[in-house]
């Protein structure tokens, strides 16, 4: 499988990365080189094989449903580019 210029623009939009017109062709070439490289996986017989979901056999750790931490609002917004009263500010979303 290979991608065309329209697909490159669509993937970039899905990935939320702005791509200029002159970046499309080089990206298309690079993505197709990678896709050509992974093509060889088609040769492997995977009939009846379970996909890996955990690399080491382990039971998911669970903790009791209690509050263990909190009160860090200042720390959480400390690195945000724009905040107000412990809220993250973003451009207007709803008209």
């Amino acid at each position, binding site marked *: 499988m290979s991608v065309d210029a329209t697909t490159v623009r669509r993937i970039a939009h899905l990935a*939320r990365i702005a791509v200029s017109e002159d970046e499309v062709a080089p990206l298309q070439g*690079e993505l197709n080189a990678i*896709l050509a490289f992974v093509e060889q996986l088609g040769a492997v017989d995977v009939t009846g094989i379970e*996909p*890996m979901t955990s*690399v080491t056999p382990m039971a*998911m750790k669970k903790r009791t449903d209690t509050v263990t931490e909190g009160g860090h609002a200042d*720390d959480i917004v400390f690195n945000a580019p724009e905040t107000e009263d412990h809220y993250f500010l973003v451009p207007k979303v709803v008209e």
Partner: protein
Amino acid sequence: MTTLNELTLADARDGLKAKDFSATDLAKAHLAAMEKARGLNAYILETPERALAMAEVADTKIAAGAARPLEGIPLGIKDLFCTHGVATTAGSKILEGFQPHYESAVTHNLWRDGAVMLGKLNLDEFAMGSSNETSAYGDTISPWRRNGSDTKLVPGGSSGGSAAAVAAHLCLGATATDTGGSIRQPAAFTGTVGIKPTYGRCSRWGTVAYASSLDQAGPIARTVRDCAILLGSMAGQDARDTTCADLPVPDFEAAVSRGVKGLTIGIPKEYRVEGLSAEVQALWDRGAEMLKDAGATVREISLPHTPYALPAYYIVAPAEASSNLARYDGVRYGLRVPGKDIAGMYENTRAAGFGREVKRRIMIGTYVLSAGYYDAYYVRAQKIRTLIKRDFEEAYASGIDAILTPATPSAAFGLGEKGSGDPVEMYLQDVFTITVNMAGLPGLSVPAGLDAQGLPLGLQLIGRPFDEETLFAAAQVIETAAGRTKLPAAWWA
């Protein structure tokens, strides 16, 4: 005379205990060496005030007879580990100005044990690269040069700053991370020792994520023993990482002198890849001889799905990366570039903040996870991962204790020499290391000799899950037999 920064970590520890010098002396020797080596660009950020303050505490503890396991030992920290109040960049412009208000589990464990932080080390952006050339903070230059040449060489990647700093005596040891070979390949390129422990041995909490099912932290140091000492402090249980194993940390240092008598070492025939250089093949044979001479049995084994590990990785890792890196959206931390609406702000922020290789991997990941392609790419790759792991399980079930392979296809290459046209050329660097991440196993790279141009070459040892001890024992046999690599003289100072 050996200057303080040229000691091994183990010797420095003994010297501090014997009060031959102080932790402050040791920190100062490193800070001075770092200042002279700025041309190598191994550190993104030096933290001298913090280093001296931590050294002062260490001196107090030593004086009081209350020294902790790593008391006063100066370390470099790969800039992928979040450090409280100290800028953490992941080698990316998108995290410009980010100052974590928490400490990663691994660095927390090191400070708990008394280690001293010298600064934050350079790396490929978000650990995506094999040469340190994708860093937004410039290339790291290897302290190594080819015989009679001043061509600048790469230190490998992604932990290029860690490997270069250890090899150039700019720290006694460094933290690093390994998703496809990012500890072992730079260690091999710089004549240092690096171990990627079993997945789950070190907590991933507070380490910037690349591909969560493959990422694992580990140390790079100048000797096998030094690596064992560092891993002993870095590893440990952590309730905040649900994939961190609930296992006690063994005495890794004690395992170093165990020897390999009675062990069976496997030589996987699939690693004898087409075009493998005669030099690397000869090194591999010599490594097998060294283990045999020390009492191990060496036997050829087969890991038939080896050729598929690298292509499967380039589906799994980008898929996980595209998901993990979705958090860099200009809202919670780092860079924000305005746009005409919120989507425009996301797109402009990510276009300006991410470098080429990172964008490429996010886009590949987005593609293989998108509707209609998920089964053909992602699910198939995860099935192949099951097969890769099964190969190893069968080898271990047949009585193999550890596996010996080359660490890299060649010695270090020059800046700009690889991957500029076709990204796959750079990806092939990890052909010998990547299977280990895919199967979650421990892997260690140990220097075993020099190539014809005078550059170091490494061998890789692969172990059973949670059996890093056997790797330390076998690596020590190789280090002793091959002799410790003589690190380059400081041409940069």
